[in-house]
């Protein structure tokens, strides 16, 4: 049932890649004057710097979670392109193309230790690994370029789908042969949050926001809503007192369905406190007819809380 749900995919990833008329590499792109990014670490890790622009700062005076996610999306696309994994602008390798296979993202986990502020420069590293026998995992590590402090870690799971039949596919051996050389096969950058994401409904959700509609600027070239916008919608029904006093420290998302220009969505949120300063919320984004677009879980810590633990100080010159 779960697989069937996933098969009605939201081709967010594919759509992003479809808009690429990939240009041949220019010599100046090998260096990184404009923050295009470059391959490091024997060709397995892609690194790109971003200067935080003023309009990426939200009401909290820091870069918004959408800004963070946008940077992740940009580096993923640039990695695929520059590493030669992108053959035809579809994100598919030659063997995948032959078999009509495309990648779709099913799951995303993000942990933010500190949000950057206006004028900060962040360094985003991204790489891919195998995930089980048939999936691929893409990880990101975001650091402050100046200090090396880890700001964000993120991990996503991708499966292959036949774009004609819309059915999920095992990874064919020919494809494995093509992409295995690009796998880092490192430990996941985030320990997987394997707790099931609950499905909310009208009675279990304390906060509901209805009538959410995509604007023109939410749409990609195929008139589907960009993945990152879903996160903004999830937060639309988060209760204001939490948004004002807490900041998003982590989230786990399951993508279920894509939506387009005429979709009308509802965002549902349920809050559970666990006795500490931290708050946890469950989320559901769905269409008016009840079909699920995305499930999520978010964790919030009080603003200006100090981050303890030893995740912070990886030097910037090691991946």
């Amino acid at each position: 049932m779960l697989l069937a749900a996933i098969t009605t995919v939201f081709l967010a990833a594919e759509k992003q890649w479809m808009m690429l008329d990939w240009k041949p590499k220019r010599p100046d792109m090998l260096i990184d004057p404009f923050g295009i990014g470059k391959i490091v670490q024997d060709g397995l890790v892609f690194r790109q710097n971003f200067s935080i622009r003023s309009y990426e700062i939200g009401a909290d005076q820091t870069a918004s979670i959408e800004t963070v996610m946008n940077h992740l999306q940009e580096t993923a696309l640039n990695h695929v392109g520059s590493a030669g994994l992108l053959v035809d602008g579809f994100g598919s390798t030659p063997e995948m193309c032959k078999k009509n296979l495309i990648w779709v993202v099913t799951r995303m986990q993000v942990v933010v230790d500190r949000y950057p502020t206006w004028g900060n420069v962040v360094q985003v590293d991204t790489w891919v690994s195998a995930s089980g026998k048939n999936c691929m995992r893409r990880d990101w590590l975001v650091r402050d370029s100046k200090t090396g402090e880890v700001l964000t870690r993120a991990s996503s799971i991708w499966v292959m789908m036949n774009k004609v039949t819309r059915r999920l596919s095992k990874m064919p051996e020919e494809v494995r042969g093509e992409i295995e050389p690009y796998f880092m096969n490192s430990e996941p950058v985030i320990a997987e949050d394997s707790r099931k994401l609950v499905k909310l409904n009208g009675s279990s959700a304390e906060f509901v926001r209805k009538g959410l509609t995509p604007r023109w600027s939410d749409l990609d070239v195929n008139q589907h809503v960009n993945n990152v916008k879903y996160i903004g919608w999830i937060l639309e029904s988060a209760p204001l007192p939490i948004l004002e006093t807490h900041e998003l420290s982590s989230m786990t998302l399951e993508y279920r369905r894509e939506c387009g220009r005429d979709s009308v969505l509802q965002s549902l949120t349920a809050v559970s406190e666990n006795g500490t300063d931290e708050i946890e919320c469950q989320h559901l984004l769905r269409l008016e007819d009840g079909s699920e677009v995305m499930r999520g879980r978010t964790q919030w810590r009080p603003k200006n809380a100090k981050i303890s633990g030893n995740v912070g100080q990886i030097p910037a010159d090691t991946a």
Partner: protein
Amino acid sequence: MLKFSYCNATDLNQALVQCRFAGSFGPLSSRRRSPRAAVSFSRSNLTPIQAVLSCQQQVGSDPVESELGSLADRLRLGGLTEDGLSYKEKFIIRCYEVGINKTATIETIANLLQEVGGNHAQSVGFSRDGFATSPTMRKLHLIWVTARMHIEVYKYPAWSDVIEIETWCQNEGRIGTRRDWILKDVATGEVIGRATSKWVMMNEDTRRLQKVSDDVKEEYLVFCPREPRLAFPEENNKSLKKISKLEDPVQYSRLGLMPRRADLDMNQHVNNVTYIGWVLESMPEEIIDTHELQTITLDYRRECQRDDVVDSLTGPELVEGSKIHGTNGSATAITREDDLDCHQFLHLLRLSSDGQEINRGRTEWRKKPT
């Protein structure tokens, strides 16, 4: 969104003195410690390859910078021009800034104009809090408010294109200031767009417009070219055109628009650029599918708060002597008899609750290039 930006210093030393209010992280101060960085990016005649090579020599392959702000400067790729009277910055278009046309959206363009304006203000030492106020303005509780924004785009950049935006400002009347921009495609050098905006000073406590004394003006005008320099020098250009108020009944509308969290800027106001998106929400889909926005002019009347609900209204602009051309039952006004590919519209954003006008606008559309 009440950001504003100032002009360049005719006297750089004077600017540095005023930098003390901006703190030691001002790009101007770090540039003094790394003159090579300043030279490579304030010279506008370096080809991209030369700029890249000089950058590479400094950076090597190690991204960790010990100099405060210098990596940010390099990535920002912006700086005052040699005469100090304007500011130039390069931007690369990112994938998520591109819309349904495979090109940068008008919101992306407007965001970049705002960004370069803010960086300009920073570079001459004005405040980083989003208000870009001079020290005296802060003492007098004065802030800048946008009155009008006019953008023309001749060619939209695509993903990974690099554009260069030059900006400067000038005095306009007793209480106003104008900021102009020119956008160029770095690869070809061609001008791909122009923009101009008018700003007025408002007292942030009384929320009333305020005239200011000459010495308050001088404090920021010292960074502006004294010789008039206009992004739109031609007579009767569209940036000066009066916008009529759209009256009921209107042809197209999208009601009940609400600010999202992402629409709020660092000062909790609805960002100026959000209004552009709202104006376009009531555009008829048949135009959006076949045409691209060539010109947009917005007059800002009232600011919007987080809990406001807004209606977006659109109707064809009827020009004297124009023909009404009916297609599928809807009427659009054509500017010239021989030009069936251009369309003009009037827009109104108003509060759903009481109909108070938030802003009014005017757009021109041209057929998408094939």
